[in-house]
C-alpha cells in the first residue's frame, strides 16, 4: 500500500466481489478451535462431498468463532436474497440434511436451527 | 537530594537505591540476594521497606530514591512480614544449625535470630534434591541449605561470564544446578569461588573449612594475593594453630570481593609440610640443616671473598617479583651499596 486511494480502491473491489457472491448460495462454517474441536472439520468434508455429489455450486466460507461455543459445530446457510440461518450442534448427518432440505429445497431445518440473522 | 530514612534526614544522589543510601549511612536493611556487583534481583524480598504514601511495601534494593522520600525500614508490620519470609525459607531448609559449618557466619541464621523465629509455623514438604555434590577439590554444594537467592547463579553469569551453574525447573522445584547435573569441571567451571564467597547460607562451603572450627573461633587477617599482578585483597581465616582454614573477601578494594581459583583456594601452600623451615648447607652434594648464624656467615664469607678478590661485578643477584617492595629495595641496595655492582635483576620479563 503506497496510498490511501490504493486501499479504498481495493476495498471497493472486494466489496463488489462480495456482493456478487451474495447472489449465490453460501454455506458458512465456524472454524475456530471450538468449532474444530466439536467436529467442524468432519462437517466441512461432509458438506464438500455432498455438494460435489449433488453438483451444487455453493460458496463455502470459513469463519472464526461467533461466540456460541456451546452450540458448535455451527453452520450457516445463506440463500440469495434470504436471511442467513444458523444451525448448531450438528452431526455429519445433520450437515447433509442442511444441503438436501435447506439449500436444495429452501426448507429451514427446524430441529437444528439456532437462529436467523437479520442484517 | 534529601530524603528521610527512619526519621534521619539523609543526603543521596540520583540513581541510588534506597538500600545503597541506607548502607552508606549505616542503616542495616536485611537482604539476602543483593550484591553491589549484580543487577538487583529482587528475589528474596527481605529488604522490603515502607514509603510514605505508597500502599504496599517495596524492595529497597530495586527502588531508586527520590527527593523528599520518607522511608521506614523496621516497622512492626515489616518485621512481621520478614519473619514470615524467614519462616518460609526455613520451612524448606535443612535446619542443622547446631553442627553447620556456616553457623556464626550465616545470614539466614542471623535473620532468624533478629526476627525471633523460634518455631516455623509452615512446616511441609521440602524441595527434592539430589544429594550433596562433592565433585571438585575446592567446595561442596548442598542444595538442602540453598534458599535460592540466586547470587551464585548471577555471579557466575554476570561477573565470571561462564554461567556454569543455572536454575533447573521452576517454582517450588527450582534448584541451582549444572546442566544435567554434570560435574562442575565438565561444564567449564573456573572454580573462581565467586559463588562460595557470596553464599549467605551453608549451601556452598569451602571443603578446607569443613569440620575445622566454628566461625567465631577463627581469626581474620587481611592480605594481598601472592599470585598475579592484580593485587586482590583477601582475608585469611586462621585457626588457633595458624593454619589457613579458608580465604574470604570483603568488597571494598581492587577486586571488589572477587577472586580466582588461585586466590580463593590456592593459598594453603603457606601451611604446606614441604615448607623450608631451617637454613640448609650443602656438603658433599647433600644438604644438611644449619643454624642461621652458620648459614649467614657462610654466605657473607663467600660473597665478601669473591667481591674482594674479583670485584663486585663478579657477583650478581636475582631479586624477586614475589617479594615485597621493601625487600626488593634492600636487595638492590645490598648489591649496589654492599657488593658494588649493578648486576641485580629479576624475572619481570618471564
Amino acid at each position: 500500500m503506497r496510498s490511501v486511494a490504493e486501499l479504498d480502491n481495493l476495498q471497493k473491489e472486494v466489496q463488489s466481489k462480495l456482493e456478487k457472491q451474495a447472489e449465490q448460495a453460501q454455506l458458512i462454517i465456524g472454524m475456530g478451535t471450538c468449532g474444530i474441536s466439536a467436529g467442524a472439520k468432519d462437517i466441512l468434508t461432509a458438506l464438500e462431498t455432498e455438494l460435489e455429489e449433488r453438483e451444487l455450486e455453493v460458496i463455502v466460507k470459513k469463519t472464526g468463532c461467533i461466540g456460541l461455543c456451546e452450540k458448535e459445530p455451527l453452520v450457516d446457510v445463506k440463500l440469495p436474497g434470504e436471511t442467513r440461518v444458523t444451525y448448531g450442534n450438528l452431526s455429519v448427518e445433520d450437515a447433509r440434511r442442511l444441503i438436501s432440505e435447506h439449500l436444495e429445497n429452501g426448507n429451514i431445518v427446524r430441529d437444528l436451527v439456532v437462529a436467523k440473522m437479520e442484517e | 537530594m534529601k530524603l528521610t530514612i527512619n526519621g534521619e534526614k539523609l543526603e543521596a544522589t540520583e540513581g541510588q537505591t534506597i538500600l545503597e543510601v541506607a548502607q552508606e549511612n549505616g542503616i542495616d536493611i536485611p537482604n539476602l540476594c543483593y550484591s553491589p556487583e549484580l543487577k538487583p534481583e529482587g528475589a528474596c524480598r527481605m529488604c522490603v521497606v515502607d514509603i510514605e504514601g505508597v500502599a504496599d511495601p517495596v524492595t529497597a534494593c530495586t527502588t531508586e530514591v527520590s527527593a523528599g522520600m520518607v522511608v521506614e525500614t523496621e516497622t512492626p508490620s515489616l518485621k512481621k512480614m520478614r519473619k514470615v519470609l524467614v519462616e518460609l525459607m526455613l520451612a524448606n531448609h535443612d535446619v542443622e544449625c547446631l553442627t553447620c559449618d556456616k553457623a556464626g557466619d550465616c545470614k539466614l541464621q542471623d535473620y532468624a535470630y533478629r526476627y525471633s523465629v523460634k518455631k516455623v509455623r509452615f512446616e511441609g514438604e521440602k524441595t527434592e534434591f539430589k544429594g550433596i555434590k562433592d565433585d571438585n577439590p575446592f567446595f561442596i554444594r548442598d542444595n538442602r541449605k540453598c534458599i535460592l537467592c540466586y547470587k551464585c547463579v548471577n555471579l557466575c553469569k554476570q561477573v565470571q561470564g561462564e554461567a556454569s551453574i543455572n536454575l533447573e525447573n521452576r517454582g517450588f522445584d527450582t534448584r541451582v544446578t549444572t546442566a544435567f547435573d554434570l560435574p562442575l569441571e565438565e561444564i567449564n567451571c573456573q572454580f573462581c569461588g565467586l559463588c562460595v564467597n557470596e553464599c549467605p547460607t551453608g549451601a556452598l562451603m569451602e571443603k578446607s573449612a569443613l569440620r575445622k572450627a566454628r566461625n567465631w573461633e577463627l581469626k581474620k587477617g587481611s592480605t594481598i594475593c601472592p599470585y598475579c599482578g592484580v593485587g586482590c585483597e583477601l582475608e585469611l581465616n586462621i585457626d588457633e594453630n595458624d593454619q589457613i582454614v579458608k580465604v574470604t573477601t570483603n568488597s571494598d578494594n581492587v577486586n571488589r570481593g572477587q577472586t580466582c581459583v588461585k586466590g580463593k583456594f590456592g593459598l594453603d601452600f603457606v601451611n604446606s609440610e614441604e615448607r623450608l623451615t631451617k637454613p640448609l648447607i650443602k656438603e658433599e652434594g647433600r644438604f644438611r640443616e644449619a643454624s642461621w648464624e652458620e648459614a649467614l656467615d657462610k654466605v657473607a664469607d663467600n660473597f665478601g671473598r669473591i667481591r674482594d678478590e674479583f670485584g663486585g661485578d663478579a657477583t650478581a643477584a636475582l631479586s624477586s617479583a614475589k617479594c615485597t617492595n621493601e625487600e626488593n629495595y634492600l636487595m638492590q641496595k645490598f648489591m649496589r651499596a654492599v657488593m658494588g655492582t649493578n648486576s641485580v635483576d629479576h624475572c619481570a620479563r618471564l
Partner: protein
Amino acid sequence: MCSQQCDCVEEELDLTLVKEILEGYEKKQKNLIPILQETQAEYGYLPQEVLKEVADYLGISFSQVYGVATFYSQFYLEPRGEYIIRVCMGTACHVRGAAKILDELEGELGIEDGGTTDDLLFTIESVACIGACGLAPVIMVNDDTHGRLTPEDVPEILAQYGE
C-alpha cells in the same frame, strides 16, 4: 534387554538433524526457544547431546540452555509416547469432572500423570486450559480433540490409538 535397547537408542541419536535445524537460525539467544521447539518436534524430546549441540552453536552455556529447557513445561528431556494425551485441567473442565477422566486414563494405561507407557505409545499430561471450555471435560490425543467426556468413554478412545 532394556539396557540394550537404551544403548541402541543412544547410538541411533542422529546429531545431523539438529545441525540442520541450527543452520536455519542466526546465532542469537532469542532463537533458543524456537530452536528447542523445532528440535523437540524432530526428536520427540530434547536429548542431552542435542542440547549440548544447541548450546555450542548459540555460544551460550550448556547450563543456561538446560535452565531454559527445564523452565518451560512444553519441553521434555526424556523420550515420550507416540500419542500424547493432554488432559485439560482448566476451570471449566475441572468443575465438569476432569479429575475423573484423568484417573480413568491413569488406571487404563497404568501410568501417572506425566508418565509414558513402557511401549512408548502413550504419554499422559495434564495441561492448563486448552481453550475448548464449551466441550468440557476435554482431552486431546495429539491433534484430535475429544470432548464432553465421561470416564466410560476413555477405553474406547484409547482403543482408537492402538491400545
